[in-house]
């Protein structure tokens, strides 16, 4: 009995040392494996959560339904009127795009995804999405919404991926400020609240609240140029540089549908 106990303890010690000596590469592979293992629970749980959420949203009183009906009717009339005008604009837009080659230059190949789970830890801003390697997703791909940049993929399993949000301290993005020559680095903060910090600006940068900040798209980086990052909230000069606080373009608290940029069209 004593021999078995000692053998078990020795094996445990060996296992502990082996775990401690694993490098980042093999650990990332193991993490992808774990995400894959947990993906059935995450995916079905995410679907159930979404159904429960939508059930609560759909329940309305008769008065609310009547008000909603009136609102939708009015909106429908307005949209029909707008639609007639937009047809002409669409044709003009297509024509201009063809001339400028805009589509070729700035369109992305997007894979739509649904957020199925939030932060794995208290101090990291991450979400899990229901797309993985089998959908063409790989690590370090930008994730966006129609509002702006969300973050980048980190660990990828067959059917689930983890996205490091732009509001995380570790997600650093080269950025430029609209209407100026100012460039800096955007990153999240450790404190919750979802604000972004734009650092390494010039001390004399005269940034005004409301100015938009976009990705700078540095060569060798993973984020393409021109994706909205946020809006300047405040600016202050520090000892060595200028620092602006930004409201993120895509609110991380209300993320539901996102797109993974798998490449250019």
């Amino acid at each position: 009995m004593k021999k078995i106990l000692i053998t078990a303890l020795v094996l445990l010690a060996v296992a502990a040392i082996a775990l401690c000596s694993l490098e980042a590469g093999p650990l990332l592979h193991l993490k992808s494996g774990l995400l894959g293992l947990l993906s059935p629970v995450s995916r079905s749980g995410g679907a159930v959560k979404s159904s429960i959420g939508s059930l609560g949203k759909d329940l309305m009183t008769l008065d609310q339904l009547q008000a909603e009906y009136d609102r939708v009717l009015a909106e429908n009339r307005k949209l029909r009127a707008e639609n007639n005008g937009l047809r002409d604009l669409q044709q003009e837009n297509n024509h201009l795009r063809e001339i400028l080659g805009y589509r070729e230059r700035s369109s992305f190949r997007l894979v739509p995804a649904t957020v199925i789970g939030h932060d794995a830890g208290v101090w990291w801003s991450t979400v899990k999405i229901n797309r993985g390697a089998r959908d063409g997703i790989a690590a370090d791909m930008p994730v966006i919404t129609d509002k702006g940049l969300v973050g980048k993929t980190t660990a990828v399993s067959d059917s689930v991926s983890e996205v490091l949000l732009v509001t995380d301290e570790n997600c650093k993005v080269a950025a430029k400020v609209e209407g100026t020559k100012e460039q800096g680095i955007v990153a999240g903060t450790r404190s919750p609240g979802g604000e972004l910090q734009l650092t390494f600006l010039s001390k004399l940068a005269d940034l005004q609240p409301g100015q938009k900040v976009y990705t700078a798209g540095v060569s060798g980086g993973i984020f393409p140029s021109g994706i909205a990052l946020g809006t300047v909230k405040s600016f202050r000069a520090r000892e060595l540089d200028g620092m602006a606080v930004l409201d993120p373009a895509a609110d991380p608290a209300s993320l539901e549908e996102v797109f993974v940029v798998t490449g250019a069209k």
Partner: protein
Amino acid sequence: MNRVFLFLILALLLPLSLAVQDLLPSLPPFGERLLLFPVVFAFGVLALPLVPALGFALLAALLQGLMLLQVQAGQSEIGLTLPVVFFLGWTIVLQMASEATRGMSWELHAVGGALVTFTMIAGQFLTLCIKRGGFPVDLSILMRIAVPSVAAILLAPLLYLLLCSFVPLAADEAQAGGMPKGPAH
């Protein structure tokens, strides 16, 4: 044989708790999280004998370390060493507490679960402060540490009852072997 089943069931519950806690909504106002993982871990190391409990702790360290793994410039921010030391350390402390209080009880589980939760979150924060620099302590940070720890005290008895009904083997083990292990009903 019962111990093997008990270990296997708890080993399955551990990753399940990780997946389920990711689905739970965060609490207002600072987005505090409810953590099930440390509470299930505390139950496991209290219910299992020492050697299987150490194995269970290694599994917990592997799962937690992998879930929190963030690789920056080819280096992992928090590797597996700290989780291994943390969970093995708590296993020994909880095993000693279990021996001292003559077996497992829901009170011990509640206090153990809360302390594991508190030290885990605070430890992660301190590690990040050392690795990234800065020590930004404010109300929101304190709430992010305190709320899950207090919630663990409230969650622990519920999980204890639930796990005891799922894992009756632990109680049988204690009665049959006369060991101070297994949850007391």
